């Protein structure tokens, strides 16, 4: 019902008429916001919590969305702030990560189950796409991704191994990830 609308239209709809429209926003951006939180926090479970908190915060602040920025940027900003808050909380009280089980009732929408057949199929298709996209990268870019992600080498170790300056290694990795993202974006995965 909402698949043909842009993100901005959906948000406007959610603000004015139908709160459930925001569910489409969650479905579209769930994984990307989760990935952003993973990049900020480095742990899957923390990233999952942060992503849920970010969407809850976004829903509560729907009225403050002015439309002068893209919905994605708006969501990114909210997610980054949630992650920074979580990090500050973790630094000050290391053992006080509270499972907010009572918060389940306040959530209007529920994130898709990770182990649903649809998600598993989507995951399989995505893995195939990622494999093809990484293989299609130029050798010098692919090399850096493999050394960082599979061999878990530090930037300094990669720099020493490839005899490249440290800044060149970081620059190549940045370029590789951007190109990878472009390739993946060209082939969207449809969830049945």
């Amino acid at each position, binding site marked *: 019902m909402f698949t043909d609308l842009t993100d901005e239209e959906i948000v406007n709809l959610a603000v004015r008429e139908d709160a459930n429209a925001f569910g489409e926003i969650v479905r579209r951006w769930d*994984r*990307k*916001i*989760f*990935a*952003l939180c*993973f*990049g*900020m926090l*480095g742990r899957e479970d923390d990233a999952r919590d942060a992503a849920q908190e970010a969407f809850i915060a976004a829903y509560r602040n729907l009225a403050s969305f002015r439309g002068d*920025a*893209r919905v*994605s*940027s708006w969501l*990114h*900003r909210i*997610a*980054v*702030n949630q992650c*920074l808050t979580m*990090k500050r909380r973790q630094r000050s009280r290391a053992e006080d990560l509270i499972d907010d089980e009572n918060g389940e009732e306040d959530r209007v929408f529920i994130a898709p189950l990770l182990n649903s057949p649809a998600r598993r199929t989507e*995951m399989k298709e*995505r*893995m195939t796409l*990622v*494999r093809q996209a*990484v293989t299609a990268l130029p050798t010098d870019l692919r090399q850096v*991704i493999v050394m*960082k*992600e*599979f061999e878990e080498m*530090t*930037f300094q170790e990669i720099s020493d191994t490839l005899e490249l300056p440290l*800044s060149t290694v*970081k*620059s190549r*990795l*940045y370029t590789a*990830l*951007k190109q*990878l*993202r472009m390739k*993946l974006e060209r082939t969207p995965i449809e969830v049945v």
Partner: protein
Amino acid sequence: MEKESDKYICNHSDEIVAYIYGEISENDRRIFESHLGACTNCTDEFAIVSDARFSVFEWRKEEFAPLPTPEISIPFHASSVRPIGVFAAVAAMIRNAGSMAQVSASLLLISGAVLIAIAVVNSNRTSEIVRGQSELPPTVASPIQSDASTLIASDLKAVERSSADRAVKETLRNGGATGRSYVRKIAVRSSKAQTSGTPSTLMGKAPVLNSFEEKEDRSLRLADLLDEAGG
């Protein structure tokens, strides 16, 4: 697609990847986090890079991590090679020794072999020295002689003089060559008797006479010859 504004687009690509992979200093992290909360461009860039990075992370987790580590088998095994000689075998044993006990046993064997070799070499040297000493010509009257041989030589002189005196007295009593021959025989017999039990350097050889004894001996021989000639 992303819309690029005309305004300055800050570039924190190095900080973005460093932050995502946790390889950023504490100070740089604080600065970057502060900037990230305020800069839409960097936030969007961070989201894009995080998304791509997470895709690779998932791929590794789903397809690579469950794969078992393949067993690498090398067709050539160093332990199956037979050592050529004793030393190579010992070296191979030490190389392959898996425990201190084995290493210690190897070292003990080597030490034992070395000690045996030294002992054999020493015994060979000793027997050579003994053989060398036995070949030396025996001397009696030389002033450099050892104390034992000097003592024996002087005894021999005394014996010969006393023998000669007896022989002269015998001759005076008996007369003739027989007495002289008898002197020589007495002298030799006495010297032999004196030399029994002497050091091995003097065994089995007739004593060498000094000049005085040589003169006396010559005079006795001359006397024998004259007697024989005279009948």
